[in-house]
């Protein structure tokens, strides 16, 4: 304190300028507008042109789909959302079954992928030794880059055989829960056919989960790696274990990113075509028994029916596609909203 008292006795270093006389006009702000040269005007024009071009392409896709879809929507009206059959030529079609099927497959995928992606993201940021970290990051990114047809082949030829056993096991022990019920199956009989369990929404969901997991994991890892070091070390300094630190610091900090990443994965799962198409056998009724053979999704419906469709059938397919697009759009914007308003929002650009 003695030091501060001494400084007070010194002369003031800052001098206050003398105020202008009262009758002088008030100073106006300087004009700082930029005069751009020819090169800059060409550059900005070109850049804006490309922006407008991209915008018009994207808007054209959306508008065209909407306009084409209205023809089908007008002829069915509200029943488009409640009908589960798909017979455009007899004017009896709707997305109740396919859209629900898409959502069911996506939910199964997210339910399986979520624990794995959270665990992997936390393992990479918190547990793994430094030398292993970059390798793991690269491998997870690689998983995201593997084409979906490769996952589809893997699911169809390898995973399906393994998962039939899992389906049977779940049906045997949890069959009393309606979702896991399978019509016409007797899991306790060793002679029962395995075919009642194949081509189900569950198997398609597991395969899609493998595609969704890395997408979720990338977002979550990014968020967890931005947990403030001070809070992290504060938890340790208070005697926390590693899990205690994760529970009270990392998870609350990363909540927004975790929700955002999950929904981003959900959006991808909803739009997946080829892997689902390879695995499921299509059916057109509302089916919530995920272990039962047969499932359907909007994108696989389009892939199956586009070639045989008449003009009106194509319009119906576009209406279905538009409904799917609306769902994925809502999911994606909700995801970015969650990420942006969370404390970890700085990572939303990743």
């Amino acid at each position, binding site marked *: 304190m003695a*030091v501060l008292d*001494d*400084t007070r006795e010194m002369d003031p270093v800052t001098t206050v300028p003398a105020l202008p006389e009262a009758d002088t006009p008030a100073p106006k702000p300087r004009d700082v507008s930029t005069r751009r*040269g020819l*090169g*800059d005007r*060409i*550059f*900005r024009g070109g*850049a804006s042109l*490309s*922006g407008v*071009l*991209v915008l018009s*392409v*994207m*808007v054209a*896709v959306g508008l*065209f*789909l909407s306009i084409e879809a209205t023809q089908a929507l007008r002829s069915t009206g509200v029943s488009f959302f409640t009908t589960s059959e798909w017979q455009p030529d007899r004017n009896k079609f709707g997305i109740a079954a396919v859209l629900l099927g898409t959502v069911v497959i996506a939910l199964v995928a997210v339910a399986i992928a979520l624990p*794995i*992606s959270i*665990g992997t993201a936390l*393992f990479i940021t918190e547990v*793994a030794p430094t030398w292993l970290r970059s390798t*793991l990051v*690269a491998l997870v990114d*690689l*998983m995201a*880059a*593997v*084409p979906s*047809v*490769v996952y589809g*082949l*893997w699911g169809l*030829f*390898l995973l399906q055989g393994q998962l039939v*056993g*899992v389906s*049977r*096991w779940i049906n045997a022990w949890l069959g009393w829960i309606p979702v896991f019920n399978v019509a016409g199956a007797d899991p306790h009989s060793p002679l029962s056919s395995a075919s009642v369990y194949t081509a189900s929404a569950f198997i398609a969901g597991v395969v899609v989960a493998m595609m969704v997991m890395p997408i979720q994991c990338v977002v979550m890892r990014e968020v967890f790696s931005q947990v403030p070091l001070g809070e992290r070390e504060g938890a340790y300094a208070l005697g926390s*274990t*590693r*899990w205690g630190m994760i529970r009270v610091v990392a998870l609350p900090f990363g909540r927004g990113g975790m929700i955002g990443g999950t929904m981003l994965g959900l959006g991808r799962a909803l*739009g997946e075509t*080829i892997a689902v198409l390879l695995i499921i056998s299509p059916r057109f009724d509302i089916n919530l028994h995920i272990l039962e053979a047969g499932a359907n999704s909007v*994108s696989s419906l389009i*892939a199956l029916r*586009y070639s045989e469709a008449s*003009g009106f059938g194509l319009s119906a*397919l*576009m209406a279905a*596609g538009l409904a*799917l*697009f609306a769902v*994925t*759009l809502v999911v994606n914007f909700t995801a*970015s909203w969650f990420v942006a308003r969370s404390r970890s929002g700085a990572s939303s*650009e990743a």
Partner: protein
Amino acid sequence: MTALMDDLATSTATPPAGTAMPFVTTSPLTTLPDRRDAAGVPQHRRVVGHISRHDVMVIVGALISAVATTMLVFGRFTPLDGQPGFTVVAFVLFLAIYAVLVSLTESLPAVVDRVMTALLATAAIVALAALFSVVVFVLWRGREALSKPNFYLEDLSVTGPLDPLEVGGILHAIVGTLVMTTIALIITVPLGLACAVYLTEAKGRGANLVRTVVTAMTALPSILAGLFIFATWILILGNQRSGLAASIAISIMMLPIIIRSADVVLRLVPGNLREASAALGAPQWRTVWHVVLPTARTGLTTSVILGVARGVGETAPVLLTAGFTATMNANPTKNPMVSLPLAAYELVRSPQPELIARGFGAAAVLMILVLALFTVARIFGGRPAGRLSKRQAKRAAARSTADLARFTSRQEGVS
């Protein structure tokens, strides 16, 4: 040690010359502990986060015990069966036994910590096992096709469904993928990068609108891009199914991806670089061309390569727009053209084992292509904007040495 302490004491007591503030402190506020006794004792850095032999033994013991107990339960006591059930029961038992073993020596929070760590590690192992399984399985099923040189040099035009793998290959699909990707690159790279530059340079309502629409378009399911091109280009405009149509569909998928990631990379360019360039009198286009783009080059390369990796593996839009053919066709404007993912998809749906093997071969080639692209992206990218690699730093140093020599020679010429 004592000399150092004396040094510190004097330096705090007398203020350095030139300080305006008069210090009147008489004694140092910080006292260093007297370490004279410890001078001769060798010091070791403490290891935190160390795995002792005891920890390893506990894990291995719990694992063996869990497997043995599960085998006993499954084989002797209950009529449980099936590999998945075995794995689940063994894993739950492992966690329980591990918790008990740790609790012998540790407190409750430590037990929870260890069990949760084991769970996190399990999640990572499951993820890696899945990736490993995918890669190995596809390579293994495709090995017979991949080992034949004709697989890369012939198309399937003269190959019957029952022909052995020595006849025919997927050259047409490889060429198709290359042609489609090249066209898609020609469309997306200039347009995507220019649009990303527009988003970062021309701030304002227009840029925000474009950014929102591009973000929305990343949600577009890929099959809808195909359906759009199928309905407009092929049905309304009456064009054939061709490689060009597929390229446009792929471009619609790739554009938002490239723009989004390039936008992020460009925004990471430090603002002071832009301001320095503007302060030196450079117009905006020169700043972008000579400062912003070179600084973000690695990141931009990565964003393009990631977009390509996505575009190469895209099956659904190609299915709708390119048609399927077994013959070689290098002309993108006429006749159907097939790409690697589409060939894999169509081939594995046939019942013939030879065709399925070819399908796996095509998938393996596609996977290797994507892995190669990805590795290239890793080598180029992975570094934030402005941070140079060793070689780049060396080149930059050489350039500035040359500049210095030029300046000095010019000054000598003047004087």
